[in-house]
């Protein structure tokens, strides 16, 4: 009797509210109708080739010390479109969700574990990608998603039109490319090429052996020392190229500008050739020289300054 009395005391307004709440709850399954929980795993070789798609949302790939691949997450599978796929065995695996028509697609979240030695190929539309701990090769391409890779991939390719690329790696080779997204590269890399159209490049390259960094109107900022055996190349059309170097830097510089200006805040004795009409070239040596640095800027500034 007590519960009934309590219900009666709630009054008609409360029942109306409960009715609305019930309607809202009933609507929730429809809104989530396309969502599916994913939890798949399979044994594969330690150095397997793995292909992963995610059209929208987020994708996290982590290398682990097991000979298996596992994927967990929530995928959005709208009616009439391709759903989540998964297949693995031996030295290959592929999984993910993709569509040639991403209109009105809700995000999917995938968390994938792969053998640390796997070679991983990833493609996303707008999904952000994070890869850590994969020691085989890593190749990521996205349209507007951001890409973050850390660890020691055997080699790394990262490309996104509108997203940002953030690399902190100890690797043999890096290729990073954006249109408008910023690029950050640091680590110990034997051979790196980073190019953007309008994105800014932030480079910490004191442990790079060979590097090429290009933008059109984005800024390029280099922070750190230049290795004695390094060969670094910087090209911009109208963006700033800024070097913040330690006082004990040892490098040979060639700076070419056409309409751009070279601003020396480091105190170098540059030998200047050329003319204002046809461009100028500045050559100078920092410390005892060693690392080779070539800089080209059509009409942007080139600034040399001390670190800190």
């Amino acid at each position, binding site marked *: 009797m007590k519960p009934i009395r309590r219900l009666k005391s709630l009054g008609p307004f409360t029942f109306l509210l409960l009715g609305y709440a019930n309607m809202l709850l009933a609507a929730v399954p429809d809104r989530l109708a396309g969502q599916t929980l994913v939890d798949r795993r*399979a044994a594969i070789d330690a150095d397997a*080739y793995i*292909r992963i798609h995610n*059209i*929208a949302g987020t994708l996290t790939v982590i290398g682990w010390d097991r000979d298996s691949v596992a994927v967990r997450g929530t995928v959005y599978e709208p009616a009439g479109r*391709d*759903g989540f*796929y*998964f*297949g*693995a*065995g*031996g*030295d*290959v*695996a*592929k999984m*993910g*969700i*993709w*569509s*040639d028509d*991403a*209109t*009105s*697609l809700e995000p999917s979240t995938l968390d994938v574990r792969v053998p640390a030695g796997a*070679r991983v*190929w990833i493609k996303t*539309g*707008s999904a952000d990608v994070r890869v850590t701990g994969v020691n085989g*090769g890593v*190749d990521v*391409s996205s*349209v*507007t998603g951001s890409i973050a890779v850390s660890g020691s991939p055997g*080699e790394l*390719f990262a490309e996104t*039109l*509108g997203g940002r690329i953030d690399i902190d790696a100890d690797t043999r080779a890096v290729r990073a*490319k954006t*249109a*408008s997204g910023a690029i950050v590269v640091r680590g110990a890399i034997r051979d790196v090429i980073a*190019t953007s*159209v*309008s994105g800014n490049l932030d480079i910490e390259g004191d442990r790079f052996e060979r590097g090429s960094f290009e933008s*059109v*109107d984005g800024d390029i900022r280099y922070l750190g020392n230049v290795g004695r055996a390094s060969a670094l*190349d910087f*090209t911009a*059309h*109208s963006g700033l190229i800024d070097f913040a170097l330690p006082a004990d830097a040892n490098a040979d510089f*060639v700076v*070419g500008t056409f309409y751009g200006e070279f601003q020396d805040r480091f105190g170098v004795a540059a030998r200047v050739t050329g003319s204002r009409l*046809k*461009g100028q*070239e500045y050559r100078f040596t920092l410390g005892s020289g060693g690392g080779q640095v*070539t800089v*080209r800027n*059509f*009409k942007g500034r080139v600034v040399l300054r001390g670190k800190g």
Partner: protein
Amino acid sequence: MNEHPRDDVLQDLVSGSLDSGATSRIERHLEACPDCRAEVNALRSLVASLGDLPAAVLPGTDLRAGIWQRIDGEAATRPSAASPEDGSVASAALSTPPRLRFATGASRWPLATAALVLIAVTATVSIAIDRGISGRGEPADGAGGERAGATMRAAEARVESAARELEALLAEQTGMLAPATREVINNSLSAIDAAVAEARTALDGDPGNPMLSHMLMAAWEKKLGVLRAASQVPIGI
């Protein structure tokens, strides 16, 4: 092999960088597929027209090609009777998402052209460097400057042609892209076009300038890169 090989696999075939097993598989497919055969013949003609370029500039197979080749090859050779629930690669192949819109049929051609033109441009610049007009070399003047200018013009013409094809391809689809993506693409192309125009004007006044040559080609390369990437964006992204 029933599926059409991807365009980069055909390029690898033409450049001779596929292993013997993959080469045999692709060649068997070519025997039965007139479309792919025509595409390979066209690619071979293009490569032949670039025959005086040093082989050293041709890129090797990269990670991407290796992974695709491996996975597609495995998927194609596994028994097709596998249960869809068994988690095998063969069953996954049944539900593999369709290839990107521009990776099939005739539209693959401009993408392949762009890739090969980039090779040609790289080679052209390499030749120029061999002839002593590198970024660290002295500017060529007089007859040397004119030769360098002619080399650049020829390389530029090839890139420009490939860019036009890709721009036409993109124009057909641009209305179906998300506004933010369209803005990124348009802004990037505008910035590159401005850079190309300025560098070209400057180079006209100083044809032997190695820095300008380098910058002009770098800008063209970026344009082809953006157009190539933009042409493969799914609808709605």
